[in-house]
């Protein structure tokens, strides 16, 4: 240090406090400056996912959280109703804990009759080159769900007697994907019953 002087306790407190104060003020400024942009970016991201799983929808979307039977974590359901009040379908934020990396999150869009419109990966960190083929940019695996009705289409890989073609050498990720879609489907059927009553 350039100066070797013993500072008094008061000086220590004053200097540290004022530095923290200035830092806090500066941060507040930057936060205020960026808040709107950050919110917009996050909203845009969610809307993008919503548009992908419910592509042609126009109307109102109401959000509810449904906790599946026997589970702790609720799924966020974006219920889509056309302007005349009929049920168009729903986009459901679902997850699985059976993934190779523990967990990943999907958004699944259902039509009113229960068939899958589209699925989209929201957040996943599966192994590059293997499990990450659940992303549509990496392989066609996820596309096989589109248009299928889980009432007749068994959501498990062919090895387990289902109808889904697993990704080569990534059976665990493929199973997890089915698990997440199945969870969303169960919740959707639940919601459908409630709204029809």
């Amino acid at each position: 240090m350039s100066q070797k002087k013993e500072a008094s306790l008061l000086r220590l407190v004053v200097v540290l406090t004022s530095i923290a104060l200035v830092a806090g003020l500066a941060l507040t400024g930057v936060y205020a400056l960026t808040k709107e942009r950050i919110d917009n970016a996050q909203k845009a991201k969610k809307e993008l996912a919503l548009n992908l799983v419910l592509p042609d929808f126009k109307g109102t979307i109401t959000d509810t959280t449904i906790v599946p039977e026997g589970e702790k974590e609720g799924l966020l359901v974006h219920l889509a109703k056309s302007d005349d009040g009929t049920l168009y379908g729903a986009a459901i934020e679902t997850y699985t804990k059976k993934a190779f990396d523990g967990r990943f999150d999907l958004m699944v869009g259902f039509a009113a009759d229960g068939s899958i419109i589209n699925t989209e990966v929201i957040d996943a960190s599966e192994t590059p080159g293997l499990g990450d083929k659940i992303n549509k940019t990496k392989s066609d695996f996820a596309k096989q769900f589109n248009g299928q009705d889980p009432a007749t289409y068994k959501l498990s890989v062919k090895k387990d007697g289902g109808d889904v073609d697993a990704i080569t050498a990534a059976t665990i990720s493929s199973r997890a994907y089915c698990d997440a879609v199945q969870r969303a489907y169960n919740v959707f059927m639940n919601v459908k019953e409630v709204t029809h009553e």
Partner: protein
Amino acid sequence: MSKWNILTKGFFKENPSLILVLGTCPTLAVTTSVNNALGMGAATTFVLLMSNIIISLLKNVIPDKVRIPCYIVIIATFVSMVDLLIQGFAPALSASLGVFIPLIVVNCIVLGRAEAFASKNGVWDSILDGLGMGIGFTISLVLIAAVREILGAGAFMGHQFIPSDYNILIFVLAPGAFIVFGFIMALVRHILNKVEAKRKAKLTVQK
């Protein structure tokens, strides 16, 4: 030490991650692609530069006993600013760098330069030092990331030119980071030793 030396010593001779082996966590974690490396390098350079400026300006005000908490507060402030700015203006980069931007706070390079250089030198020298170290850090990140991205993903800055059947996936995963880091470290040291030997030989001839 000349001004030019203060700036350039961080590039290779005292390169923070390859020679001083500081900031190893981001060096290993974010070097999966050149774009990530550039983003991380720029963010760290900004924090280094700003914290060096403020700390060298305040070096006579900050008492010795509380200097580390003061440095941390200053560094953390700039890191939070960078984090917010990236989230707001470059959400894609924010998604791929994730938690490693906030982790710049605990990057040894930033605190190390504050303690070892900015707290003892004037503001101009500190600016040069911060810039030089930041550029050196960016150079090493980009070197490692280039090797990893080309071998592991068959791409450079996101442009794929090797089909994915011929990618060596391990290089974009953690073990590949360690292997590439080690070999680049060895290579840079080898080249530096050669340069140094040549310089010495020249000196003795001149004498």
